[in-house]
């Protein structure tokens, strides 16, 4: 091993491969059978259960937990997939502590909810690992639908449409399907190539063709798709990254957090992933935390996460914040970047403290930094899209855009939180609307 956490600059192999493997292991190991039985027994099978209401995809949670408790996790998985075909990934990345588990009556009563997320993972893994796909396609309708973007929204829409017998072509700009599941979340949330295996499993429904390396404006045009297909679903996500807007932003070592996360997810050998000695991440969302935690896990000596407002305003959930803190990430709140200092490459970043209304206080501080990650939000990219609202494609409850024959969902569209589970729900619901319209 040539480097250590103390080595200066952006270096690979700060930790040996044993440490790296351990650091990037499964965040929440899967329940074994007995653990699942014990955990499932805690569910009260509530009437009109609050957890169901809180789930953006309306999974029948009490039913699937009871199916686990009675020794039929495969049936439980079917219950989950009926509502959420990406239930496996959602079990890993959903902020359950602010969704189903937050409203679990046992959380209310004891501060200790039924572990819905881990139970969902237990059930869904059974089917996905066995390679069993529980759905069959309806007879072919002869209708053709284009799905742009092979992320959670697009995959969800494609699967539901294929199930109804339509022929689907999914386009994606990247070399691989999966979207943020594949490129945009921390590695320890999707170990053993789960995102890739999940896509393969999803495609077993049949009737879906995936074409990678194609994006709107680069090989694809909305007009062309409209002509060629009976309907178009846009699940293109947010391709642009917001800039810091401060001096020195162009210096070497100032990178987009999303690129770092994507590169890390695709890395075959983590010991080849370079990381700074002193890393500063700007932002307060899930992406910021994923970047900060993984920087630390790669062996960075000091990792600071800088957020301009108070802790309670951070988009990253409390669980994520605690995870970051537990891995040794220093969370600095009420501070904004003022300038990036360095000769060619970043050496320091200057911050100014701000109050909760973002008013500068005049107090500044400099942090040593050889790498800065920007994670202050993403923006919609693309020309000639349907009408926008608040920077996103404007859709109604069924995912219909301003253009007849074009639907949209997921992060690129208005409505809902920018969560995987919301994207899945929007893709599914748009698919049902497309199907209804094409069947009419």
């Amino acid at each position, binding site marked *: 091993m040539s480097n250590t956490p103390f080595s200066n600059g952006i270096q690979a192999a700060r930790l040996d491969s044993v440490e790296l493997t351990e650091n990037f292991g499964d965040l929440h190991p899967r329940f074994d059978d007995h653990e699942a*039985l014990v955990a499932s027994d805690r569910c009260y099978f509530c009437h009109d259960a609050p957890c169901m209401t809180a789930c953006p995809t309306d999974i029948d949670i009490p039913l699937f937990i009871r199916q686990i408790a009675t020794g039929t996790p495969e049936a439980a998985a079917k219950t989950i997939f009926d509502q959420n075909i990406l239930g496996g990934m959602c079990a890993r990345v959903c902020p359950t502590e602010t969704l189903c588990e937050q409203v679990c009556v046992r959380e209310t009563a004891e501060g200790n909810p039924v572990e819905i997320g881990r139970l969902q993972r237990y059930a869904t893994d059974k089917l996905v690992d066995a390679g069993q796909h529980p759905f069959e396609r309806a007879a072919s309708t002869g209708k053709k639908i284009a799905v742009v973007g092979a992320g959670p929204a697009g995959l969800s829409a494609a699967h539901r449409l294929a199930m109804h017998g339509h022929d689907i072509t999914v386009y994606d700009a990247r070399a691989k399907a999966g979207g943020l599941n594949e490129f945009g979340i921390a590695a320890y949330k999707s170990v053993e190539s789960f995102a890739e295996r999940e896509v393969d499993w999803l495609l077993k429904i049949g009737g879906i063709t995936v074409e990678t390396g194609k994006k709107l404006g680069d090989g694809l045009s909305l007009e062309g798709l409209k002509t060629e297909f009976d309907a178009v679903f846009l699940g293109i996500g947010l391709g642009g990254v917001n800039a810091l807007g401060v001096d020195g932003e162009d210096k070497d070592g100032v990178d987009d957090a999303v690129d770092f996360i994507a590169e890390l997810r695709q890395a075959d050998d983590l010991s080849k992933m370079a990381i700074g000695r002193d890393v500063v991440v700007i932002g307060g969302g899930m992406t910021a935390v994923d970047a900060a935690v993984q920087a630390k896990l790669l062996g960075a000596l000091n990792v600071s996460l800088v957020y301009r407002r108070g802790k309670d305003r951070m988009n990253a959930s409390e669980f994520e914040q605690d995870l970051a803190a537990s891995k040794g990430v220093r969370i600095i709140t009420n501070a904004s970047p003022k300038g990036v200092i360095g000769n060619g490459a970043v050496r320091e970043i200057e911050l100014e403290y701000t109050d909760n209304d973002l008013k500068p206080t005049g107090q500044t501080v400099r942090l040593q930094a050889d790498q800065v990650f920007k994670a202050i939000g993403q923006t919609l990219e693309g020309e000639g899209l349907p009408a926008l609202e608040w920077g996103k494609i404007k859709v109604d409850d069924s995912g219909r855009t301003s253009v007849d024959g074009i639907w949209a969902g997921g992060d690129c569209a208005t409505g809902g939180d920018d969560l995987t589970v919301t994207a899945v729900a929007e893709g599914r619901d748009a698919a049902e609307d497309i199907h209804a319209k094409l069947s009419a």
Partner: protein
Amino acid sequence: MANLESEFVGIKSPNPFWLASAPPTDKEYNVRRAFEAGWGGVVWKTLGAEGPPVVNVNGPRYGAIHGADRRLLGLNNIELITDRPLEVNLEEMARVKRDYPDHALIASVMVPCEEDEWKRILPMIAETGCDGFELNFGCPHGMAERGMGAAVGQVPEYIEMVSRWCKEATDLPVIVKLTPNITNILHPAEAALRGGADAVSLINTINSITTVNLDAMSPEPMIDGKGTHGGYCGPAVKPIALNMVAEIARNPETAKLPISGIGGITTWRDAAEFIALGAGNVQVCTAAMTYGFKIVQEMISGLSQWMDEKGYESTADFVGMATPNVTDWQYLNLNHITKAEINQDDCISCGRCYAACEDTSHQAIEMSEDRVFTVKDDECVACNLCVNVCPVENCITMRTLETGELDERTGKPVEADYGNWTAHPNNPMSTAAE
């Protein structure tokens, strides 16, 4: 601190907790460990006649019912009486009794239904110095096929006959162990009394098939693809045992017959309940088989603490105290009216009370849009189902209406007087309808 020393049909023991005749009491080694752990007495594993002992199956002997986290709720066994030679058991019993003179040692016995068999074996066993006999008329499996165990216990005439033989053969106390696999527990209990038995012990195990192996399509425990009914015991059988104990204790003819209570006793509280219903002491097996002999220490400390809190100095102080309150349905007070009440501070809004009442009972619980659950007094029949399904203890309680208070369901005020079915106007046999 309460004195747990116990005397049952003249047999003294340091506490009322005896190990029932079963696998835990089959050998000197186990029994010594049991006494060291704190058990007050032991009913030695059932002895059979001289000669070649019985043999047991070599496959599984037990089947189980589990609750959450594999908590053992019910156990079923197909083990027979001791499969060790009589003389070996007798030597060991004598040694144990010599070393533990203050502990109770009872010999459980099962021989064919012939007078000379019983009259020959009891004096032989008595030479061990044992404190008494328990006649095994209860085991429902295996031995019953050979005309012993439950096959005797199901025929009151046989119980009476064998009890009489035994009383003629020994001066030691004779306890008759009853099988629950009958229609009315009073018949065998009365037979034992007529035969001169000093006490009864109950219940023995219940005929049962614990589970069916759905791959092999065979009952469990399965031996080479086949199963047979076994004897069911453990926490699951306690309610059945309590009722049978109470039936004997409140029956005028058998009210004075001492009872050794058996059936799913797992904690001090279970033991206290049996004693309150009329048992003079208790016998335990499944709890020891599940957790080991040490469990008696909790039973001892728990019973002592409770007795201290209640001011009971010995277990005799509360034997049968609950018996007078066991009555027939027809004597229950129909003018006692209660309504369920939900404590909103404790309610966690799970809605189980609502689902239970709305789907399966009287539609007496209302659910608001924001998940507040309230009882509709004009529909509530006070069935108590909501109390039982509520996961929060004491969140739903039953409030007794005051005399004169309006029962919104019937539109009538609560009457002051006790009134039961025997005098109810709807009863065609009503005695007060003249």
